[in-house]
């Protein structure tokens, strides 16, 4: 099996599983607790049907939309994901280059393996930076200022990670950053010599954005979970978010909003967008899926800020349903990370091309010329 055999989520996942050591694969693939929310994130789309209109003289549909003040060529972009060098040595650079090629947005995690400056230098795609509020405010300030200097287009503050989720697969595989070689995982690494060779011969693994500020990003075998629990400020509140918005003074989103009430409050503090997300089912298991909640939030605040649906998206039709329910765009993490693990930059390009083709095909089949035509009248929820 190689990249040419990958047509959908399952194919990319399968190939990534072949190529990545088990602890790393399961770090992407897993969710928290029993992974009930993780599964629901995708299944939720199946409880809603698209209703096409025919004979609509569609021609070539316009798939472009505007998020964070930037026009993107399709209503789907790359979610911010940590430590992408674990999946392919070029990590974030590979993702950003693929995003540029397909005219969509790349998002950088605070815990990226290349720095804000390094990625800004190699890709002109629209860029979103994902921020965590650190206990040490100077780290947070520094990140915001550097994003501005590097011409990032938007900032999103993650608000669903005050404490780390219970990712049991990581407990079992011993996933840490950098990976800790336990006896059990050793076999899995040994069976993937290509990955190990690349990992050892490329740039030393680091959390590039924060390496000068904390020793946690470097040599210590420290789990992501521990990093989150030690460095992020669990006392973060609405005032802290407002502070970040003022300091940034540009398009700004809260990532991880799930309640209508919080969405309204996001407007009050000056957000231009929200990302409806449960962190890919990796934090609070049993919490609601983004698609189950998007319509209620859109009905309340859809005219006042941009709604991004983040979580569970695996198909062009999922994007169409999210947009019909009121989202402006979708973002996805797992699916593109699998493609990154499966084939580096080429893998991400293929996944973006596939999703673009699916969105385009399905727009035509729906009889829609532009994304604006996707509204509530195009979907019916099953009872």
């Amino acid at each position, binding site marked *: 099996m190689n990249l040419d055999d990958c047509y959908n989520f399952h194919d990319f996942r399968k190939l990534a599983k072949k190529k990545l050591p088990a602890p790393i694969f399961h770090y992407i693939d897993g969710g928290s607790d029993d992974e009930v929310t993780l599964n629901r994130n995708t299944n939720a789309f199946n409880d809603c049907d698209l209703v096409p*209109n025919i004979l609509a003289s569609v021609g070539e549909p316009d798939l472009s939309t505007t998020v964070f003040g930037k026009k993107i060529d399709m209503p789907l972009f790359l979610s911010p994901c940590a430590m992408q060098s674990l999946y392919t040595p070029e990590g974030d650079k590979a993702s950003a280059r693929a995003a540029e090629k397909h005219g969509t947005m790349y998002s950088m995690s605070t815990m990226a393996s290349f720095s804000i400056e390094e990625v800004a230098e190699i890709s002109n795609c629209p860029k979103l930076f994902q921020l965590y509020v650190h206990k040490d405010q100077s780290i947070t300030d520094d990140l915001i200022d550097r994003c501005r200097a590097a011409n990032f287009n938007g900032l999103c503050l993650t608000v669903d990670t005050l404490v780390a989720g219970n990712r049991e697969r990581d407990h079992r595989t011993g996933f840490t950053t950098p990976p800790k070689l336990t006896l059990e995982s050793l076999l899995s690494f040994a069976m993937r010599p290509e990955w190990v060779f690349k990992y050892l011969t490329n740039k030393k693994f680091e959390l590039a954005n924060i390496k000068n500020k904390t020793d946690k990003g470097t040599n210590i075998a420290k789990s992501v979970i521990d990093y989150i629990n030690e460095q992020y400020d669990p006392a973060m509140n609405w005032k802290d978010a407002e502070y970040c918005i003022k300091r940034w003074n540009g398009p700004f989103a809260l990532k991880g909003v799930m309640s209508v009430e919080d969405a309204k409050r996001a407007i009050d503090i000056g957000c231009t967008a929200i990302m409806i997300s449960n962190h890919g089912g990796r934090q609070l298991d049993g919490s609601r899926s983004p698609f189950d909640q998007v319509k209620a939030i859109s009905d309340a605040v859809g005219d006042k800020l941009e709604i991004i649906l983040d979580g569970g998206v695996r198909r062009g039709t999922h994007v169409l349903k999210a947009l019909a329910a009121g989202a402006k765009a979708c973002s996805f993490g797992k699916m593109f990370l699998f493609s990154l693990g499966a084939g580096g930059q080429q893998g991400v390009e293929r996944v973006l091309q596939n999703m673009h083709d699916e969105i385009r095909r399905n727009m*035509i089949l729906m009889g829609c010329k532009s994304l604006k035509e996707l509204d509530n009248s195009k979907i019916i929820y099953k009872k």
Partner: protein
Amino acid sequence: MNLNDCHNFGDFRKLAKKKLPSPIFHYIDGAADDEITYARNTSAFDDVDLVPNVLRGVENVDLSTTIFGKKLDLPFYLAPTALQRLFHYDGERAVGKAAKKYNTMFGVSALATVSVEEISSMIDTPKMFQFYFHKDRGLNDACLERAKAAKFDVMALTVDTITGGNRERDLRTGFTSPPKLTLSSLFSFATKPMWGINYLTKGKFELPHLQDHVKEGTDTNTSIGNYFSTMLDQSMNWKDAEKLCSQWGGHFALKGIMSVDDAKRAVDIGCTGIMVSNHGGRQLDGSRAPFDQLAEIVDAVGDKLDVICEGGIHRGTHMLKALSLGAKACSGGRLYLYALAAGGQAGVERAIEKYKTELIRDMKLMGCTKISDLNRNNLRFR
């Protein structure tokens, strides 16, 4: 396993799988994306229950219904499907003769492998021609004229294939027409020698309605998805449909209507019927199942044109449920295609006989003697 062991949809499918090279089997069996809509098309019927009435004297059951001005002996017919000679060397000849025997409608695809003229000379029972709107207007006119000259009763314009669906099984098996022999599919063809012998010895494979106009009808390898995406006119609109409707001048249906608004518009442009259909789940995955959408559409236009429920039907009870909701008739493709592959004309006849037997039994159990006895009082949604 042989034809005598086939008692239901699943059995015919199993035998077809044994007989067909895998790319061809999966072309029939597969659908778009994750095949969620395909699965829902059938499982939708399970969300409603039949409520029988007893003590009604049901010794004689009349299954006949009238659609498009034609009386059929059965409340279901054989939907138009492409490329039938790939599934059995007799192809449309077998299906047409079986339809005639049971006096039900035979749908002939624009991508049929036997010509409308030959079919017309073979059977005098009701016939429907299924039409794709091509970019090549000359081809469109020729199809229409030929179907008219061959005395076809109904013209059905397919409106849900404005671009090809994402049929991932075909991508993997390399299904094209005629089949492309890849290394991986070669094995599958090699292990089904009878299919290969018949394919090579029973007359050249052709698409008679297209071959004078396009190279896709002949020897070039092209996929069906590719045909939809490159040959069909994506700018097709309501005016084009209206023009075709009046150019045809007889019973005219739109195949692939799913929204109430579109159903109303079909009435406005002069259609006498619509097929509520999502192309057997082969086009837009995640779209609504015909049975889920049927009631709304019947409520809006059921008194103005014939509403046909197409897709997902595996059982007589499925038909009873659709007819109770207000469909005038049901139709299906896989309904008889597996049977065609499994046993040619005898296979299709056996399938029709099975559905007919089920219908009669189920009508009696429901306490109904004619199709018009069926109504929504017979149903409870869970």
